[in-house]
């Protein structure tokens, strides 16, 4: 995977040690990298005390995050890190307080207008356990609109304990959004492969990322009835995630499409999801099978691999797809690599929610979705 003096310079550590991480950072800098994208696994157990002082000494822009798992080529790593040296200067901005419903993100997003070049790609990473991600994205798109393209996802731990998870030149950051402006174009594919199986339901009660009632009934009661009937299994105290990973929600969009919302846990009769669920919306229950999900990953790669001279492929794939596909997840990566040209390296993360701009709709926060972006320097067929 290592390809010195050719950018992007991708250095992979499979041990997950901080020494190795900073050794790779050093190597990338010495090779002439102008900015660094760092992707690391939650299992590395990196802490602020361990990293911050050394991150603050890095002389070039740093961005990236700690995710449940990461992808380097065909390898899915549970432990380890990737340092991707870029020969382009990334301008990195942060917007704090991503769980504060009273924060006006538009004011901060408008400050980015003057700092971003039209046509540039905004690698947008968020603390995936923050509560106002959709609101932030809505305001980010309101300020910057279609003049830029967006790709990213939610960092954090599958333990669902919020902790510092975004790399920056100031150290690890928590409960914030990170926008890295890279003056390269990108083509993006967004697919999930989940299909409607129950609904429509009317979201009669919801706040932030919590659904309180569906069709004027307690949300979990409705959810449990449908899932237990379909799966012929019963929810117990411990198996919520095991059942729910196969039955996400789908927010209604015109012409049959849906935006997936992943139920994380239930708190009494409330259902807590990754990403906001607006009240008064139509919602469906979705289910999928390995075939439909894997077909979606192939489709996603086909959409992404058009009209650019590819330099690197960035994958934001939902961790819940790994949990659902289990051993067959390698096929998802294979599907993508089969479409990507051989000379285009693939790096990516298994994230807590995905961020992308499909090009014909508004910017959205997705769950259980595969988002593949191919960054390139020009417009040319991939294959």
């Amino acid at each position, binding site marked *: 995977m290592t390809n010195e003096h050719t950018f992007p310079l991708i250095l992979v550590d499979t041990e997950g040690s901080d020494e190795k991480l900073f050794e790779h950072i050093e190597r990338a800098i010495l090779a002439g990298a102008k900015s660094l994208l760092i992707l690391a696994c939650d299992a590395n157990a990196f802490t602020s005390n361990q990293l911050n002082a050394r991150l603050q000494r890095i002389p070039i822009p740093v961005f990236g995050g700690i995710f449940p798992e990461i992808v380097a080529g065909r390898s899915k790593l549970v432990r380890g890190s990737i340092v991707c040296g870029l020969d382009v200067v990334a301008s990195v901005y942060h917007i704090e307080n991503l769980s504060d419903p009273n924060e006006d993100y538009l004011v901060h997003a*408008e400050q980015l*207008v003057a700092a971003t070049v039209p046509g540039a790609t905004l690698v947008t990473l968020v603390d995936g356990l923050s509560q106002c991600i959709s609101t932030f994205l*809505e305001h980010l*798109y*309101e*300020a*910057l*609109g*279609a*003049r830029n393209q967006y790709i990213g996802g939610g960092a954090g731990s599958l333990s669902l304990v919020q902790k510092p998870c975004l790399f920056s030149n100031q150290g690890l950051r928590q409960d914030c959004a990170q926008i890295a402006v890279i003056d390269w174009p990108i083509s993006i594919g967004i697919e999930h492969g989940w299909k*409607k199986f129950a*609904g*429509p339901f009317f979201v009669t009660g919801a706040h932030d990322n919590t659904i309180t009632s569906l069709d004027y009934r307690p949300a979990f009661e409705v959810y449990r009835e449908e899932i237990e009937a379909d799966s012929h299994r019963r929810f117990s105290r411990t198996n919520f995630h095991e059942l729910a990973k196969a039955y996400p929600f789908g927010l*209604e*969009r*015109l*012409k*049959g*499409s849906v*935006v997936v919302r992943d139920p994380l846990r239930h708190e009494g009769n409330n259902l807590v999801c990754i990403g906001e669920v*607006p009240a*008064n*919306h*139509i919602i469906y229950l979705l289910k999928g099978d390995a075939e439909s999900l894997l077909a979606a990953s192939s489709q996603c790669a086909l959409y992404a691999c058009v009209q650019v001279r590819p330099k690197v492929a960035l994958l934001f794939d939902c961790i819940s797809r790994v949990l659902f596909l289990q051993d067959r997840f390698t096929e998802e990566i294979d599907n993508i690599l089969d479409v990507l040209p051989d000379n285009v390296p693939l790096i990516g993360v298994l994230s807590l929610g995905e961020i992308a701009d499909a090009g*014909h*709709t*508004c910017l*959205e926060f997705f769950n259980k979705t595969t988002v593949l972006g191919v960054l390139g320097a020009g417009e040319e067929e991939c294959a």
Partner: protein
Amino acid sequence: MTPTLELISIQYALALLVGQDLDLRTMLRKFLPSTLKLLNCRSGYIWLHQHEAVVGVDLPEPAYSYPALHGGVAESQPALSSHLRRIVANGWQVKKPGEIIQIDSCYYHLLPIGTSGLLVLLRNPPLPDTHMLALGLVLKRLETACLACLQHAYLNEARQEALLAQKAAEQAHQAAVQANKAKSEFLAMMSHEIRTPMNGVMGLTDLMLYSEVSPQQREYLDMIKSSSRALLDIINEILDFSRIESGSLTLNYAPLSLRELIRDTFPPLTLRAKEKALAFHWEVAGDVPDALDGDAGRLRQILINLVGNAIKFTERGEVAVSVTLQSGAAVGQACVLFAIRDTGIGIAPDKQASIFQPFQQADNSITRRYGGTGLGLAISSQLVEMMGGHLRVESDPGNGSIFHFSAVFNLTVKPQTPPLASARLTLLQADRPLDILLAEDNAVNRMLAVRLLSKVGHKVTVAENGQEAIDAWLVKRPDVILMDMQMPVMDGIEASLQIRQQEQARGLMSTPIIALTANAMSSDRDRCLAAGMDDFLSKPFNAQDLLDVLMRTCN
């Protein structure tokens, strides 16, 4: 789900997004982004208009756009802008249910918001007509919500203006209160400044009247005294009015004998009536209770003002006062009606209301002929109001007037009134010569007091300020101290406090201290007594007043 059901469910969700706030921009911000997501649109712009053709005018900026249009619609969307300009020029007319224009492989949906606006949606692929029809119903609702927001904004603006006006009025009121306070302070200060030399003039006149003078000199001195008294009355009236205006005037209630009060008040007025050959008589009805709780000084002031006016404006005939009991008073109270009738010049009906206003007399010729500040009736009217009654007038021009007022008094026991000292024409020698320490900074008043006190046999030591008074008190240990309140270096209040502290610290007998002050406020009396002084004499005072207070304090 069938396409129809899908459409209806989307329509329903959109309808619920309408009107979530009364602020127009917030409402549109809650509506448009969610709508765009539901409809899988890329961007949207909302214009609100007056449904009128605007030829030759640039397209206005949208009321809301998602995402924001940087640099305005003409710069960021020139082709769309060009299309829309034609629509604006055509009175915002759009095909129903909407029309779609294609620009560079993008489809712009132009959807009317009722008759008040236009929604432009960018969506690829374009929406079918059925969807635009379904959206039309939602946009009618949006029109209503927009108009409600605009109305709300209008009302808010009106309310803000009203609040601003109210604030300005409050500020003006505060400024007026401040100005009034400044005026009151100025008047109080002027009163003090005038009273101090007046004390000299009146005291020295008194002193000369007590000495051997020729009849002509006595006549002149009487004229000086009368003029001084008139000047003092004017100052007192202005001061009273100022206190009433500022709300600082309060009534001092104490038991009084109504008949004694009238008997004491009217003799000087009888004299004045007699000088004009007028008959003057008064009558208190038998059922009017005599022992009342009231402010004797203020009641006397009202009666002197009204009877004095009656005499002043009557050239022939009579002035009569009747005091009767009115029914309807609460248990333990008496409502007493005072009526002052004259056969004078009377007051024209159109002037009768204004005479109770300050600085108003029936006409300017009255002022020129009879003089006066024009404050007397205004003050009397206010004092009557404070006593729970109303001062009114009935008048027949050329035949006379009746001024009448009622006042409510609590019934009480008959007061113990000290016998009035009879007016003396000569100063009697003091029974007991006193060692008096006089603290007074004004040279004339100092000289007057020294002469007067020496004349009756007292021994006077003088100090020109409070510190000198303390020093002299320590050395001389006088029988009594006459202490001016306002003095340089140390004022009378501070000097009195220090004397009382030293007396207490050294276990000395208390030396009586009498305050002499040109401050006429009742609060000044309270301040003096609180500082440990024993009595209080307001300037200007006549000689006998000073001797009386000395006798009262030292005995």
